């Protein structure tokens, strides 16, 4: 099996974004995938009964929505930056705005800051109506990029 980072590079070259996630067991288990719609990279959480958190409404589990938001942020980072390793989540903050109904959910991440070590992403998740998000998140990640070498050690006083 290719190393994950090679799969990512291959996915970027070929434009087959589905390859971003096919190597990740948790994404397969959750039904999370990356899709390109109208030139935008979106995360998609395909509805399944096992994602339900409140069967009375029914509503998606908050954790499942959180997983989609975090995964979408990581897709965006792998897609848009020269990250050579899987980004490591430092902090994820989710605001839940509406209950997630028993249908597919989509999410879109926007890189808000990229530094040498940390990148920040904002993500919106929605169902039928993009103007009515069910949750929004902001997340910070540790990244390692190919083109940016580690900073030189501080010069000693001479």
């Amino acid at each position: 099996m290719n190393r994950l980072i090679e799969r990512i590079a291959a996915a970027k070259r070929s434009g087959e974004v589905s390859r971003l996630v096919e190597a990740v067991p948790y994404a397969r288990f959750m039904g999370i995938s990356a899709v390109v719609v109208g030139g935008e990279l979106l995360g998609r959480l395909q509805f399944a009964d096992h994602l339900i958190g409140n069967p009375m409404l029914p509503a998606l589990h908050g954790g499942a929505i959180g997983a989609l938001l975090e995964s979408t942020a990581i897709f965006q980072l792998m897609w848009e930056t020269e990250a050579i390793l899987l980004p490591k989540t430092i902090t994820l903050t989710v605001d839940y705005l509406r209950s997630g109904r028993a249908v597919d959910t989509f999410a879109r991440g926007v890189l808000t800051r990229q530094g040498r070590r940390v990148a920040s992403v904002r993500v919106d998740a929605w169902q039928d109506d993009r103007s009515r998000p069910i949750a929004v998140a902001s997340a910070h990640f540790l990244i390692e990029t190919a083109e940016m070498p580690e900073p030189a050690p501080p010069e000693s006083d001479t």
Partner: protein
Amino acid sequence: MVDDDSERLRVLTELNRRFEASVPHNRALNLDIVAVEHARATVRLPYDVKLIGNPETGVLHGGAITTAMDAAFGAAVFQALPRPMVIATLDLRIDYLKPATPPRDVTIRAHCYKVTRNVAFVRGLAFHDDEADLIASGTASFMLGTSSSRRPPEQE
């Protein structure tokens, strides 16, 4: 003491029946409430290959930790409420301090440290065995009484 233990076991069994049977996604992750006391809950997330986020290392995906923490936070809120009511997560923040070590289970300890008329506030920690060696730390707030009898689910 035997009676205390058996009573505790009975309560835990009943809690788990509701926690797992009524919440499909908790069951899908094999989440288990392992201990409760007033306003506190301890939940175990068993290691499972289907929850791997990095296939090269076997480390669990952050989403599985997030879900387990959300579930543990909710369980702690239920232990703090004067009577059962429907709750909904308002916000959730998780700090990932270090990756979980495969193939070890993850334990989450949650404490609902404040309940108001409308909102409950929770914080919690994720670790393997040693609470001083943390995997994640989190806080959340929950809306109380979001039952369909009080407010119909949003129609879109």
